[in-house]
């Protein structure tokens, strides 16, 4: 129930935000970009705006909306990149975010980007936008692709059928983008664009004369008939909405648009209407109409509308396109290999192994180079400056923060996160991830997830931080919770480094592999248990699978850079603060206070020396530090040359130490992103779970090994 209240609160804020936040923060007219996923929307956005982009978060969703500004011949416009979605219903996060952003930013013009090779499906969203009464310009993208598949589009006819300008584009080459912006600006500037102002300039195909739908005054686009409008007119519903909408509805929507949303049982609109007496009155009309229609059509009006909209989209597409049969293309063939079981599974395994190896080798290589560079250049400078400015101990503490802290953040960030984001962008933009999601779905269902969750899990083996962010591709909170828990339990490269540097080096390869095996078993067990314990049902896969495409390198670079920047901005402050606290504890010797309460667990149950317990505490900062600290603390404790662990730990202890390090909660940076993604309470629970498991399994291993 509480989520309902939450939603109502959000709604109350919607209109306030519609005026306030947006009011001062933009220049010139507002252009919104809408479109289905994977139609080249981001490419057009990047061409329009360059790299000066900010992102906005919409309540109740995990989807971010990018905002930038575009310039043309001295004119400026604000461009809002709505999340890619198939429709504007509140049925999924992407659709909800797209809709909220549309209502909140109240664009002067909406550019809808269509995939010319799949026009009928793409037109559904276009019609939904027109239905809401929003001014629209269509960018017919991917005409080159469509042409190669034998599809020709009559742009003029399409423009006439929709009653709005249509501009053909090839976004990845920048073709048509300037013309698109010019037309959008012109449409945005003409307050009566749909009336007699049409048809001037640029020789573009505006819907002039011969329009199939009723002519309307003002800039309202034409409205098709879905078989519910006549009744709505007759029984006064439309009039009631028209008369009351200014009192309850988001601004900028037509009465017909509201009527359709209400008949489609849109929860957000119903809640808004219920919130005011005028809205309630209008709802009574709509409910009566819904009844009447339901009896007449023997079907819920929502389905009737969806069906009619689809029928219209299909007939427009059929009227405006010609298809020439072509032979099977190479990329279709590739697709078949990638998704067929016999070939697909070996290909997927090879790609995953390649991904892991690339992350491991390239990441490690970069990490070592970075550490070397840092300790050779940045460290001495920071050290000298700090010591010059501050007295002894204060300088030591501060150095923990700015030297060790920044180093820790970048030493994970640059080698592993940046590399991973690059690979992820390549896999995403080629469309290969879809094939893997398709293949792995049945496996993932066992732990209550579906195919799309595989990617974050794999990426967790590189670094948990981007992997947790990657769980956003999942739609329900239940799935995100399970997936992030499993991600956190995936041994990341830092933990693998500890296993390699301790167990593999001093005990043997087989025990090291055993540790990874135990971690995998724990993940599987936790996943199955969570799937049984958490309320709700496992997510169901509904995913469009795109044909493979060769992505432009520029797009991959832009995507990688944005994600990386986001990671650095989020993770760095936390790591620095964490390092400062650790530094303070260490330099003031307060850290040793922890040894006593920890000793029954560390020395008694786990059978480890007391210093190892401290090293585990330090590991929270950054996992590979656990090993480094163990050596450093041991030096202080035992003196002399102890860089060989075997001098103060036996093989059993080294094994248990590596096992515990692998299982318990990864690091502060992960905790931060996890807190943001699933909330702090769940984060606390996940931390407690992993620490509990680590102590339990580590202790059990210790007890077993003591007896054999």
């Amino acid at each position, binding site marked *: 129930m509480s989520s309902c209240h939450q939603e109502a609160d959000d709604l109350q804020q919607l209109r306030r935000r519609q005026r306030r936040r947006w009011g001062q923060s933009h220049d010139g007219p507002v252009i919104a970009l809408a479109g289905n996923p994977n139609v080249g929307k981001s490419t057009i956005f990047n061409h329009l705006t360059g790299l000066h982009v900010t992102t906005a978060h919409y309540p109740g969703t995990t989807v971010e909306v990018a905002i930038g500004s575009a310039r043309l011949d001295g004119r400026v416009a604000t461009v809002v990149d709505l999340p890619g979605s198939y429709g504007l219903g509140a049925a999924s996060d992407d659709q909800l975010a797209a809709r909220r952003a549309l209502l909140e930013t109240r664009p002067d013009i909406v550019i809808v980007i269509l995939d010319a090779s799949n026009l009928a499906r793409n037109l559904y969203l276009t019609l939904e936008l027109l239905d809401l009464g929003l001014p629209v310009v269509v960018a017919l993208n991917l005409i080159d692709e469509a042409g190669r598949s034998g599809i020709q589009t009559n742009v003029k006819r399409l423009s006439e059928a929709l009653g709005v300008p249509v501009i053909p584009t090839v976004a990845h080459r920048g073709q048509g983008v300037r013309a698109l912006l010019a037309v959008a600006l012109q449409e945005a500037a003409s307050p009566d664009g749909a009336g007699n102002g049409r048809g001037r300039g640029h020789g573009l195909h505006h819907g002039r004369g011969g329009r199939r739908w009723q002519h309307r005054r003002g800039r309202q686009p034409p409205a098709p008939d879905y078989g519910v409008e006549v009744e709505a007119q007759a029984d006064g519903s439309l009039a009631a909405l028209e008369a009351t909408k200014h009192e309850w509805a988001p601004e900028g929507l037509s009465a017909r648009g509201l009527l359709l949303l209400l008949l489609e049982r849109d929860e957000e609109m119903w809640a808004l209407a219920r919130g005011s007496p005028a809205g309630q009155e209008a709802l009574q009309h709509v409910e009566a109409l819904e009844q009447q229609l339901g009896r007449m059509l023997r079907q819920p009006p*929502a389905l009737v509308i969806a069906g009619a909209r*689809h029928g219209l989209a299909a007939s427009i597409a059929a009227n405006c396109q010609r298809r020439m049969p072509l032979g099977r293309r190479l990329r279709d063939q590739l697709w078949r290999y990638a998704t067929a079981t016999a070939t697909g599974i070996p290909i997927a395994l090879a790609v995953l192994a390649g991904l892991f190896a690339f992350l491991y080798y390239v990441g490690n290589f970069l990490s070592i180079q970075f550490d070397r560079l840092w300790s050779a250049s940045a460290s001495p400078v920071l050290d000298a400056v700090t010591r010059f400015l501050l007295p002894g101990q204060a300088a030591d503490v501060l150095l923990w923060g700015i030297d060790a802290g920044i180093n820790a953040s970048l030493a994970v960030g640059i080698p592993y996160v940046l590399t991973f984001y690059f690979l992820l962008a390549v896999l995403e933009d080629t469309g290969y991830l879809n094939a893997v999601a398709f293949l792995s779905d049945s496996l993932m269902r066992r732990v209550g997830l579906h195919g799309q969750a595989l990617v974050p899990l794999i990426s967790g083996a590189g670094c948990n931080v981007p992997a947790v962010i990657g769980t956003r591709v999942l739609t329900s909170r239940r799935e995100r919770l399970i997936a992030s828990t499993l991600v956190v339990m995936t041994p990341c490269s830092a933990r693998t480094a500890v296993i390699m540097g301790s167990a593999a080096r001093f005990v043997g390869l087989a025990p090291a592999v055993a540790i990874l095996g135990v971690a995998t078993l724990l993940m599987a067990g936790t996943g199955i248990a969570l799937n049984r314990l958490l309320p709700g049902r496992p997510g169901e*896969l509904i995913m469009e699978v795109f044909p493979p495409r060769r992505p432009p390198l520029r797009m991959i670079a832009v995507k990688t850079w944005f994600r990386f920047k986001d990671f650095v901005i989020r993770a760095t402050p936390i790591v620095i603060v964490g390092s400062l606290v650790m530094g303070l504890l260490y330099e003031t010797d307060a850290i040793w206070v922890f040894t006593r309460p920890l000793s029954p667990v560390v020395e008694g149950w786990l059978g480890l020396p007391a210093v190892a317990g401290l090293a585990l505490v330090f590991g929270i900062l950054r996992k590979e530090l656990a090993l480094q600290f163990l050596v450093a603390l041991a030096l202080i404790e035992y003196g002399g040359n102890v860089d060989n662990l075997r001098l103060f730990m036996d093989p059993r202890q080294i094994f248990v130490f590596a096992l515990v390090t692998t299982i318990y909660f990864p690091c502060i940076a992960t905790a931060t992103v996890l807190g943001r993604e699933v909330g702090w309470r769940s984060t606390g629970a996940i931390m407690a779970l992993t620490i509990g498991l680590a102590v339990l399994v580590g202790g059990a291993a210790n007890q077993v090994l003591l007896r054999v």
Partner: protein
Amino acid sequence: MTTPAVEEYLAVSFRLQEEGAPLTVAALAQRLSLSHASVSLMVKRLVQEELLERCEGELRLTAEGERRAAEVVRRHRLAERFLFDVLGLAWDDVHDEAGRWEHVLSPAVEERLDGVTGHPDSCPHGHPIPGREAAVAVELHALSSLDAGERAVVVQVRREETSLLRYLASLGLLPGARVLVEQVAPFGGPLLVRLGSARYALGRDMAGQILVRKGAR
């Protein structure tokens, strides 16, 4: 004596069987939003009372169980019809409301409801009302039961959540849509379905909710 809880279990089992979905403790727990433990306790009781039986790792309604379940479902769907047609409740509200009615209607009231609503064949969502099945003109299959290479036309989506229906509609997966099953992943994996020039991967459960008529037309 059949308690409302027992009736609820029977009705859910009936619907699962009707949908062709596996009838298991896990499936019941999901539908009823109850814990695995409490469901398996109740199932044990229903097996003892010979309303459910175990069969090849799954559960099945016995003849008696099915008879009683059909009564509950019939009351539920008649109530829905009445709430929708006569009282004018919204079509996506009637399901929950009827969920309360199904346990309390006496046979006499049930009889009158049937009369008042004009002896309907189906509930407002299009599901047949047990005890009055008109001869089904076409054979319906779950999309998930099709093999790779088969063509079909979507007839109905079983699940009654508006948001799911709207989502599917925005993809074009709504009654009348012509689909081609391109691939079926093994081990209960998803189906790859072609619709126009788009391809969708649909989880097996999801595809089980979509009823189709085989053939291209």
